[in-house]
């Protein structure tokens, strides 16, 4: 209930129109009473008298009222449509924006589909409620109340009957409300699980196909879907009782009024007119009362939807600027890039043991430090601390002596550039995917981007057309040259980064060069190709601090070699933390830190460590017995 009330500021902003619409709703319900009265008067008066001309005036009134009523219906729907459609997308915008800034750790606790079902299903439920349900939910009890007062004024006994009918109605609602709300909450949560399941089954389709597990997935989905059906049926069953009450109670009241009324007429303490009036009012009240079954269900579903919406909106923003806000685009100052980890500890919120503890590291400006450790020792968790995707749970990390938490978050993320081992490309052009790593210029400021894919690069217009294929060559000669690979001109930086990542060759061969749409909605690229684009994005514009999480795991040895050489040449100035699984990557570093069980156990140059650290030799595959062992087993 309170969660619905929290939408009040938005309603208040449009209160004038909303109230006007409410008046129209009440008005069109009231008109329904007026017309039969005039009709009755025409039939009893002019027609009965045979006065044709006399019936024309009241008939014209009926005609006018009829037109007015139709206009009210039309206007009501017409006015409410843009308001509630707008609210729906506004609320979704807020939800999306909130989620974009919520810390990664919080995100991980939410299954994807739960967020989606809130953003889509729950909000469309709320749109319908504000467009229709709420109006009638307020109007119907008012009308019923008015009817009750009329009944009481006709005769006190009728008033008693009306109150007597209200008691079981309220009781029935109170009994059924809780059951319906619980079922509705479960149903809407299950809808979220269904969304999650569908998303997983599509994203994991290769695994399901490789193992022939589609039938298993289908069975899993059916079980979920069966659960949803169960909850929906519970809703329907509770609803059937609500309808039952909504139909029975006015009928019983009608019977009572009829009985009491006729008894009164026989007894002489009531007139036939009173009875007929009371019956007419009761008959008229049937409609709004019968609607209660529907309105109540709609209301309870909306309460659930609102609860689910605010649950997400109330997620805390843990990782922010020092002042608790998040400023969008702070320009970075210049930094030397001196990174220090000081007694850093990191623990997942729901874990008992920290995954990283007592991490002390000092990475000098321009130094490349390789982080080496076995699978699952916390390397990726450590890397996520630098761009503050996660915050340390104890200790501190400083950049040029200032705690990372004292930076504005987006300034920090401009200074620290990242390539993840699981490369994510966005659904846009290759150019924009790479250039978004640029430190100073936002991609939309690039002239080529403006001429080339104006709508897409601007991103803001919302009208961009996802074209690819030969037709999109119509974007003009200027683009086709820059799109197809020229080391000079506006795209020079992009090409340079692509060259470093050994991605320039394959990008040139793409159907539209830099303008090729990639990402989930574009051309699908191989893992190695995606990884190299992500690397190009990380290194473009020579970032001050670079974090590379096993950046070449999916790349062949030859390419790896080329990339290593280029990286060594270009990244002399960047402070780099690179997670390495292979000797060749580790050898690229000035210094190597060995991570073992969440602690740094040794640091030194690659050669020093090879010479003195047995665990390191194992990790680098340099202990000769390991290879021999494999060989033996094979024989």
């Amino acid at each position, binding site marked *: 209930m309170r969660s619905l009330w929290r939408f009040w500021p938005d309603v208040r902003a449009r209160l004038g129109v909303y109230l006007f619409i409410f008046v129209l709703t009440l008005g069109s319900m009231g008109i329904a009473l007026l017309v039969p009265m005039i009709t009755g008067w025409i039939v009893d008066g002019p027609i009965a008298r045979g006065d044709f001309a006399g019936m024309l005036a009241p008939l014209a009134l009926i005609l006018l009222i009829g037109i007015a009523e139709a206009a009210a219906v039309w206007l009501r729907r017409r006015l409410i449509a843009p308001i509630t459609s707008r609210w729906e997308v506004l609320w979704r915008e807020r939800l999306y924006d909130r989620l974009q800034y919520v810390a990664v750790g919080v995100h991980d606790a939410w299954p994807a589909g739960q967020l989606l079902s809130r953003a889509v299903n729950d909000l469309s439920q709320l749109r319908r409620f504000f467009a229709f349900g709420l109006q009638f939910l307020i109007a119907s009890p008012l009308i019923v109340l008015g009817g009750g007062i009329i009944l009481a004024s006709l005769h006190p006994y009728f008033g008693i009957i009306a109150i007597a009918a209200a008691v079981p109605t309220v009781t029935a609602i109170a009994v059924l409300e809780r059951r319906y709300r619980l079922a509705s909450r479960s149903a809407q949560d299950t809808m979220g699980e269904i969304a*999650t399941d569908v998303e997983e089954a599509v994203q994991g389709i290769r695994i399901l196909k490789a193992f022939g597990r589609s039938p298993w997935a289908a069975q899993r989905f059916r079980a979920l879907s069966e659960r949803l059906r169960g909850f929906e049926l519970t809703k329907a069953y509770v609803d059937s009782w609500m309808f039952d009450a909504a139909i029975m109670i006015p009928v019983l009241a009608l019977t009572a009024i009829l009985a009491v009324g006729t008894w009164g007429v026989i007894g002489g303490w009531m007139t036939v007119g009173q009875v007929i009036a009371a019956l007419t009012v009761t008959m008229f009240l049937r409609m709004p009362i019968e609607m209660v079954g529907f309105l109540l269900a709609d209301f309870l579903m909306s309460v659930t939807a609102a609860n689910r919406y605010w649950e997400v909106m109330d997620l805390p923003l843990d990782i922010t600027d020092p002042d608790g806000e998040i400023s969008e685009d702070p320009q970075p100052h210049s930094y030397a890039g001196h990174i220090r980890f000081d007694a850093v500890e990191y623990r997942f919120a729901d874990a008992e043991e920290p995954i990283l503890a007592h991490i002390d590291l000092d990475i000098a400006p321009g130094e490349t430090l390789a982080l080496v450790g076995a699978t699952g020792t916390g390397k990726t968790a450590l890397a996520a601390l630098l761009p503050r995707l996660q915050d340390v749970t104890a200790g501190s990390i400083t950049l040029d002596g200032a705690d990372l938490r004292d930076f504005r978050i987006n300034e920090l993320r401009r200074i620290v550039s990242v390539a993840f081992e699981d490369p994510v490309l966005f659904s846009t052009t290759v150019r924009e995917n790479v250039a978004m790593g640029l430190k100073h210029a936002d991609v939309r400021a690039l002239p080529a981007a403006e001429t080339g894919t104006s709508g897409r690069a601007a991103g803001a217009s919302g009208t961009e057309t996802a074209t690819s294929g030969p037709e999109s060559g119509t974007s003009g000669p200027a683009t086709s040259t820059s799109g197809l690979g020229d080391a000079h001109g506006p795209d020079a930086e992009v090409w340079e980064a692509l060259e470093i990542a050994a991605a320039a060759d394959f990008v040139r061969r793409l159907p539209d060069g830099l303008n090729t749409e990639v990402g989930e909605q574009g051309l699908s690229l191989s893992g190695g190709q995606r990884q190299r684009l992500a690397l190009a994005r990380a290194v473009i514009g020579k970032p001050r601090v670079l974090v590379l999480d096993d950046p070449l795991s999916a790349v062949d040895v030859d390419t790896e070699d080329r990339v290593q050489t280029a990286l060594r040449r270009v990244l002399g100035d960047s402070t780099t933390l690179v997670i390495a699984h292979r000797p060749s990557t580790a050898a690229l570093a000035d210094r190597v830190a060995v991570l073992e069980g969440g602690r740094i156990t040794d640091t030194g140059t690659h050669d020093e460590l090879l010479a003195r650290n047995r665990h390191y030799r194992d990790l680098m595959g340099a202990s000769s017995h390991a290879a021999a062992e494999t060989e033996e087993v094979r024989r």
Partner: protein
Amino acid sequence: MSPAQPDRADDPEIEELPPDISRRARRLLASLIRPHLALAVVLIVSITVGGIMSVAGPFFVARAIDDGLPAAVGGDTGPLVVAIAAVALTGVADAAATWLSIRLNGRLSQKILFDLRGRLFTHVQRLDLRYHERSTSGRLVSRQTSDMESVQQFVSQALNGMVLSLLTMSAIAVTLVVMNVPLALVAFAGFIPLVFLTVYAHRQQRSAYRRTRTSIARVIVQFVETMGGIRAVQSFRRQRPGLERLTGEDAVYAQANTDALHGVATFAGGTRLIGNLSQTGIILLGGWLVINGYTQLGVLAAFLLYLRRFYGPLDELVQSFSLYQSASAALEKITAVLDAEPDVDAPADPQPLPEQRTGTGRSISFEDVSFAYDSEGPEVLPTFDLEIPAGQIVAVVGATGAGKSTLVKLLTRMYDPSTGAVRLDGVDVRKLADARLRESLVMVTQESYLFSGTIADNIRIGNPDATDAQVLAAAEAVGLDPYVRSLPEGYDTDVKKRGGRLSSGQRQLVSFARVFLADPDVIVLDEATAHLDIPSERLIQQALARVLEGRTAIIIAHRLSTVEIADRVLVMDAGRVVEDGTPAELIHGNSRFGRMYSAWQDSLA
């Protein structure tokens, strides 16, 4: 306001709907209702009974006042008591029938939705990779959520109202004709403009509702993509462009929705206007008829009473109609997915695989095989032949883009060859039942996806019937066990809970554990150890060396450590096998492989 976006040019099958799509969508709806016809009939009967009872109530009220009351005043309370009892009884009967029909309607609509969800899910699973690579998960999610919701709105709310309204209207239409033909004709005359209005509203709403379906799908795609890549979004400060994009897509959606609802407004207002105009016309004509003695006053009074009940249900119909419009736009989208036929499909009459000779693996042969992803596109694999005897372990090496992955995608039937045939123990893989093929041949790639559930559940993807002990053994074999044991809930740890979040290396170990559990005759590994550290990779190789005994294996790896366990090496370049021999032969010759091998040796410490 932004204009509607043109559909994407590069995936016409996914976005552009064929011209007869609405017919197909109706056929789909009919096919969903057909199996539950008996239930539907009972439902209609109970709705009808409820409708009759609710009309009968007022009739008995009138009887009580007109006949019962005078008689009771005269001393005979019998008729009055009977009439009052009848009012109460019809009310109870109405309530009971409504109670029943809401339950039956719930059952029917949930059955329909359950069937449709299952059908769509199964079909999406059946669609081949070619389809999935062009589509996005977000779009398919929107079919199962947002579109399904539109269908649910219609089947759970509109069916009831539609049946009731149509029944009431036809019953009253008959009554009107019986009462007075000319007046009835005037009443029916309203239907002529109504037909035009309906056609107009249908057109207007259809295009708007179709746009809502397309645009909400785009919103969902954007949402899913952002939340799935939240780490990259935050690191690269993509929040603002992301929001702008969502807002842009959503503006189209809000506009389409507004247009659709404006269509409903026109329809609802127009219908009410027509109803009110005919009512005025009837009073005018009726008054004239009565005044000139052509008909009775009582007839006109009754006629007018019924007329209100005749036009009243039109509101309900308008509402149902717009729900239907919305649902049919959604059904069209769903139909388009259901109509997509996979190129790679299960055989009509599957052939059996020959009996497995214990511990030999299965032979593989590529005969005259060539492959292109597109019929017009370039050939990725030019025509070739390849024989791999049972039990051989083959390493396939070559630069990125040489066609190694494509080769194994043909063998594992992710794609079918453009020409020629791939055979497993002499049987064309296209002739094998999917379950049979998958149980004898399994592939692991560098992509290691985890599904919601526990770690044990995820390993069991390899074999859903595996015992706990088997799951444990598989995890031990790949070196995952120590880590899993360190978790508070061990194998029952939920992989989506933070404590259970596995690193990419650990996820890859889960993939291996799946294979060990699946226990196939042929194992295909495509860069399956890319994310592992060297000791883990070694451990896997030791385990593989044991496991591959008596099986056939094809292993693709950039790191040539794999070759140590291979019997044979294939070097690929530009879609062709350019070198083929034992590792020993190739390492020492002046071959490409020799050069690659020494480069790899150099990359080691």
